[in-house]
């Protein structure tokens, strides 16, 4: 079966914003709850990989990415049923040709969130 694909620029916003919804438009929290989490759930149901393309946006804040990806593995009010770190890392493929360094950083966010060493960055 073909993997599921998401492009943040096309499926969410060309200008990703802050961490939380109240901080401003196009937040990481909004992206995770409306796009990323449902897509990953769908990928889990179908048993396929989820490919996320970070290219094409105006640029990312670290808080947006941490809340989006780290938030998948973290249990809180907006995410009562988090994914396991291993599941996320095995079933997500991140494409970032414009800024390759984000791939390792995002993996670090997922690992830290899962270990609950670091819950909220600010």
């Amino acid at each position, binding site marked *: 079966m073909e993997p599921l694909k998401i492009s943040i620029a096309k499926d969410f916003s060309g200008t990703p914003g802050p961490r939380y919804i109240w901080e401003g438009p196009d937040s990481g929290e909004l992206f995770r709850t409306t796009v990323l989490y449902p897509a990953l759930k769908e990928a889990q149901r179908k048993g396929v990989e989820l490919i996320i393309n970070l290219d094409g946006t105006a*640029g990312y804040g670290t808080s947006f990415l941490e809340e989006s990806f780290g938030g998948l593995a973290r249990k809180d009010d907006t995410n009562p049923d988090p994914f396991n770190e291993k599941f996320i890392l095995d079933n997500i493929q991140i494409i970032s040709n414009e800024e390759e360094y984000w791939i390792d950083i995002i993996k670090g966010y997922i690992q830290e969130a899962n270990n609950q060493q670091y819950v909220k960055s600010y």
Partner: protein
Amino acid sequence: MRDIFIFLHIKIFFYFVRIHYRTPSLMKNVYQTLKHTKFREKRAIKEKFKRRRFRFLKIARLILYLAKNKKEIIKFRKNKSRSISRNLTNPQIDYHYVNAPVDFSFRKNYREVTAFINKIKTHFDKKHNVYVRFDHVINIDYDAIVILLSILVRFKAKKIHFNGTYPRNTVAAEKLKGSGFFQALKQRDFKESKNYFLGSENSIISTHAETTVDSKRSNEILKKAAKFIWNEERRIPRVQTVFIELMQNTVDHAARKEHKRTKVHDNDKRHWWVSVSYKEIGQNKSVCFAFIDYGVGIFESLKNKPETSFWYKILDKIKERFNPKDDSDALKHILSGELRATSTGQPFRGKGLPGIKQAFDNEQIFNLHIITNNVYASISENKYFLMPCDFKGTFVYWEINESTTSFKIE
């Protein structure tokens, strides 16, 4: 015959006497006679009493008016500045005078500029009207524009009088004029707002302010910067990251400590300010960004991080690990991202401030300066030191040029 001759002589004599009598010198003599002097004295006394009576009536009418309209006056006095109570017939605005630094550049003259900002802040907190003397200012740097405009807008938004003199130096005056400073100064119906824009689309300097993390706005600013450098609108992701980190810092600290997810009350929201200016020297084009917020500064906000945050007690962790000599040394370690995340063992880079330093290390931004609390950091010159004065807020300055990585907009 003899009688007729005498009569004719007498007639001729009186004829000449009459002519002579009508001349000015004779009139003057008449005017100075005792009878006329007394008349003039009496008239002067009458006029004097008339004027006194008129003045007395004027004051009496005023007192009657005040007695009738007491409530309205008290309300009026509360809403207006204090000086109205001094002289009700002729109210004057009592200004507190402040001299602007001769070299108005935060990066080069941080001591005097910090003292200037602190003085203005004191007056602002006490709601004093301020008159800034720019007469002797020789140089106004682009980083000073954002300070001046942010101060002006804050005063105007709170309806506190803010005025000043023009700089005698024409270059400095032109810079201020181009920034929209005088336009905003003269504006009467200034209202408090969540966002501001000063200058114009085509001016060399434009200033923006917001209370949220507005990535769309920062993207528009960067697109315009790209058009100046590369003659077309482009995306500049690394600089957008820097922008978002700074906006996030400003907005974050205004939030309540306990529940970061709850909405912040409007009164607690703080503006961030950024002035963008365009420089062209020969064939080299660059765009300068001066970002400022009047929060509590980086160090104070680090001391107030919640327990669940990685940044919780970060200063203690840095002290344990690196034993920095002072806050400037601590900032150096924070920016470098040397402190590693305990679970992954990876350097704590790509998060907040270290991300800004990383953009500089990768030559995406240039001439990076950070001034916060009592720390001055010129990252491009690798200079970190303590200032003798305290700046409550965060100031960051950086530039981009043709070597900054950018991408086409699809």
